[in-house]
């Protein structure tokens, strides 16, 4: 009995030794650009990838390579239900757990460029353990979405799928830009965007890009704090043409919630007299549509709300549905925006 167990132990050790041999061998690499614009070599065609930002998980799913992901961060993207079963190896406040990551034996770890000592320490540990780490720019920034897809396409060796996906997104972003770029300043409605009660965004946030692209003017663009809480009376005095309320939550909301939020905003004492409320131009949108892959859809909604006449032929929900069907093979569930 005891002897058998020892034999088994030796066998397991041998197996592990053989398994680890190919890892030591020369691997093909590919050169990509990281979050700081530097060229870095990462393994080509990695089979086991740990991906921390949920927006990047989404992108890998969209390229049809979701089953290469072996570990994820906290967020589970709504369009990738199967990612839920992946082991979660990080937490928002503590950052990535190096031991848990090493335990998954990944060929590549993809993180975003979050600042701070915790991710930095984790990266040091991972690299000294011989695990390549790629840091891509934060997926909340609007101009990083397409380069991110290209980079992932290079690493996963999926040129055709990448082109198709990038083409789909570019088509709509270009369409919005074409129709709004020539608008006179007077033709751009003033927009008040709210992340939570009276908390808005200034001109340095990604939201500025979305509002601007869709042909609107962010009333808080000049504020010095990035996400300031503003005086209700100031909003009232500025009298925005349109109010958009961002609704948070990891899963898509029901129509009831979106409608409730909108009606709550409308009936707030300081907002009742605002033009946007009087003209029934208060909208709610899921924050999911403000970053990553949702961004182009969010911008379509914005464009349609800011300039209904210019975008009469566009149905953002249909585009959203089409994107999910084509690239994720899932149906659109829940409500992401409420007019």
């Amino acid at each position: 009995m005891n002897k058998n167990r020892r034999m088994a132990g030796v066998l397991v050790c041998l197996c592990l030794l053989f398994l680890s041999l190919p890892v030591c061998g020369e691997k093909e690499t590919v050169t990509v650009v990281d979050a700081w614009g530097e060229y870095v070599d990462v393994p080509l065609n990695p089979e086991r990838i740990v991906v921390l930002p949920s927006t990047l998980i989404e992108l890998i799913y969209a390229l049809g390579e979701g089953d290469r992901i072996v570990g994820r961060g906290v967020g589970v993207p709504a369009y990738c239900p199967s990612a839920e079963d992946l082991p979660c190896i990080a937490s928002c406040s503590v950052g990535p757990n190096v031991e848990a990551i090493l335990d998954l034996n990944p060929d590549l770890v993809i993180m975003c460029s979050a600042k701070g000592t915790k991710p930095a320490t984790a990266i040091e540990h991972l690299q000294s353990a011989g695990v390549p780490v790629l840091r891509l720019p934060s997926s909340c920034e609007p101009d990083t979405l397409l380069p991110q897809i290209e980079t992932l396409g290079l690493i996963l060796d999926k040129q055709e799928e990448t082109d198709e996906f990038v083409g789909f997104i570019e088509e709509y972003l270009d369409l919005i830009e074409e129709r709004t770029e020539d608008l006179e300043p007077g033709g751009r409605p003033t927009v008040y965007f709210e992340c939570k009660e009276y908390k808005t965004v200034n001109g340095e946030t990604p939201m500025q890009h979305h509002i601007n692209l869709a042909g609107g003017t962010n009333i808080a663009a000049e504020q010095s704090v990035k996400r300031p809480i503003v005086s209700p009376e100031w909003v009232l005095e500025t009298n925005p043409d349109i109010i958009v309320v961002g609704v948070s939550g990891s899963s898509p909301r029901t129509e009831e919630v979106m409608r409730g939020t909108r009606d709550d905003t409308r009936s707030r004492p300081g907002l009742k007299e605002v033009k946007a409320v009087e003209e029934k131009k208060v909208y709610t949108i899921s924050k999911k549509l403000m970053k990553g892959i949702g961004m182009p859809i969010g911008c379509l909604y914005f464009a349609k709300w800011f300039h209904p006449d210019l975008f009469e032929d566009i149905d953002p929900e249909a585009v959203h549905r089409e994107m999910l069907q084509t690239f994720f093979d899932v149906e659109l569930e829940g409500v992401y925006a409420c007019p």
Partner: protein
Amino acid sequence: MSDDEVFDAEEVYARASGKKTLFTLVLFVGVLAVAVFATSMGAASLGMGESFGAVLAEFLPVEEVSTFAQVVVLQLRLPRILMAIITGISLGVAGAVMQGVLRNPLVSPYTLGLSSGAACGAAIAIVLGVGVLGAGRYVIVINAFFFSLLTMAIVYGISRMRGTSVETLILAGVAMGYLFSAVISLLKYVSGNEELREIVFWLMGGLYTARWENVIILIPAVLFFTLLLMRYSWDLNAMSAGEEVASSLGINVNRVRIICLSLSAVLTASVIAFTGIIGFIGLVSPHVCRLLIGSDHRYLIPCSGLIGALVLLVSDTACRTMISPTEIPVGIVTAFIGVPFFLYLLVSRKRRWWQ
């Protein structure tokens, strides 16, 4: 000869209490004046005349005021100003009573774990139950209120087991405070980005959510509990001479202690459930008053409340207007305005304020 002395003592007493009454009145007028001034301050460009006109037009059908001015002043500024006043009053009163009951200068709603309890309740609501905006707001408020009172009950229960000594009560409060802070840390640790931000936000505290519907509930509650607590002033005065003295004067020390503590707990809990944690005021207002008028609780309790209201109102007005339209969390401003003021009193006054 002895008749003269008695007469003198009475006169001295009358003069001293006259001074204290005057001080209370001055504070009251001060709060009113600042409130009136604050009504005309804000991000919207309304002149003083327009602001006051809007208030007057509500009562006298004389002046024509724009709806804009009316909404800004009546719907936005007034509830917030009132909220600052009643929050300041309740924190100041609760602080004075708690310090008096427990005869310890470091006691405040914060040290007794009430704030941590409320924060923990709010964090639980945020992590487990936030979602629907309307319902969500009240889920947080109710949870915070409930947990705050629960903390007081636990702290008192624990100290009961050891015969209600003051030291056990305070230490149990501090310990519970740490426990709840740990729970908050745990919740922060496991929560996602959105919830984390929400919790941090709540912990900072602020008055920007003030609305008439909250203020209307809070005003009578705060006034009622404050008056109720002032009825125990004599008992608190006797207790400050020591438990034995108080007992020999026929005061049921334990009973007074539990009543005063629970009343101040309800008082604090009901406001911080709406505002989030606003520290410092509960601790410092009583000391400021002791430095200025001594420790007679008949004056100390209302004055401490008024000082609390004054500091919070000034701070909140400053945080509304300093870099308007962006607002600064009130806790930051309270500390920046209140701490130098308190330190100045601390070094400049000769009175031994705590004996």
